[in-house]
């Protein structure tokens, strides 16, 4: 262990640095040049009212691709680590006791609503807060709700993996199509921008959001599943 004195000195130094930062902080009154560019060109270049989604999906789309790849690696490593731990096979996946009737019924009614809400968040990602990442997390929450209500139930591992890889491939394909037809990798101009502020507008952004959402949801679901299941294949 590091001695307590050292920790306190380190924390004090950091605290002092933070204190000076925080006291001397004065917020800007104008947007910086990057942000001003994004604000001015959101309508004409990407056609997405939600500028954050515009940045994530289009302007900095390559970063998002990298991020999704990192998530995929994470889920793969977790599956690997847990499979090497050699858990006792034959025990059912019930880390929790079997659930009562009320929770089962409630889950059967709520899972469609949660999935529907996830789809809403994904499809409206360019209009309202939301997008692929949030929607994917909500979809994974739906999977988790089903897992909680029926701990012994298994979800198709292969189906999740297939969704994951298919959406990933289509994502890259759309990016390449943007390079071939429009201005560059992951340019959303391969489809017409459409009427500003409607659901099917902003070029390829809804499509890319759906793919990101499916991929992120599948990755989170597979992480949840590897942590939940006892038999490690």
């Amino acid at each position, binding site marked *: *262990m*590091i001695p*307590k004195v050292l*920790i306190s000195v*380190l*924390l004090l130094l*950091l*605290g002092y640095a*933070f*204190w000076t*930062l*925080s006291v001397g*902080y004065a*917020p*800007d*009154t104008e*947007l*910086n040049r*990057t*942000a*001003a560019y*994004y*604000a*001015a060109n*959101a*309508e004409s270049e990407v056609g997405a*009212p*939600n*500028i*954050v989604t515009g*940045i*994530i999906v289009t302007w*900095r789309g390559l*970063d*998002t691709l990298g*991020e999704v790849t*990192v*998530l995929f690696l*994470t*889920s793969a*490593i*977790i599956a690997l*680590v*847990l499979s*090497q*731990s*050699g*858990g006792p096979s034959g025990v059912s996946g019930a880390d929790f006791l079997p659930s009562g009737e009320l929770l089962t019924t409630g889950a059967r009614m709520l899972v469609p609503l949660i999935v529907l809400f996830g789809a809403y968040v994904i499809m409206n990602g360019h*209009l*309202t*807060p939301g997008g692929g*990442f949030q929607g994917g*997390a909500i979809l994974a929450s739906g999977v988790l709700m089903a897992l909680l209500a029926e701990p012994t139930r298994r979800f198709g591992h292969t189906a999740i993996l297939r969704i994951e890889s298919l959406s990933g491939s289509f994502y890259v394909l759309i990016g390449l199509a943007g390079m071939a037809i429009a201005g560059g990798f992951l340019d959303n101009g391969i489809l017409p921008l459409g009427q*500003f*502020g409607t659901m099917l507008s902003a070029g390829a952004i809804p499509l890319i959001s759906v793919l990101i959402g499916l991929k*992120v949801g599948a990755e*989170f679901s597979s*992480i949840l599943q*590897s*942590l939940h299941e006892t038999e490690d294949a």
Partner: protein
Amino acid sequence: MSQIALTCGFILILAGLYGALTNRDILRMIVAFTVANTGVNIVLVAVGYLPGRTAPILDSAVPVAEAAQRIIDPVPQALVLTAIVIGLGITALMLAYAYRLFRLRHSLDISNFTELKW
């Protein structure tokens, strides 16, 4: 407002660091890490905040023509959004390793793992 949020984020970072350095239980160290993670996110969003402005989403409340005068900086928000998602991945990874270590030694106390001590 940004001062309040900045201070809050800094305190969260310090608290998380303290917990991660002093706790002996691996799970508690991971909890402290998530607290520090949230603190960093708050600091980043607070830096992007400009007083008197509103969210970077254009609708009837914020017409396109006035956008540059009415919205806050969207870049830190996009950054934090991805940071949160990656943070969940990292937490899951650490938890998987913690479980693996527990299976190996049947203990979660960090002082039982001394192979790499120097």
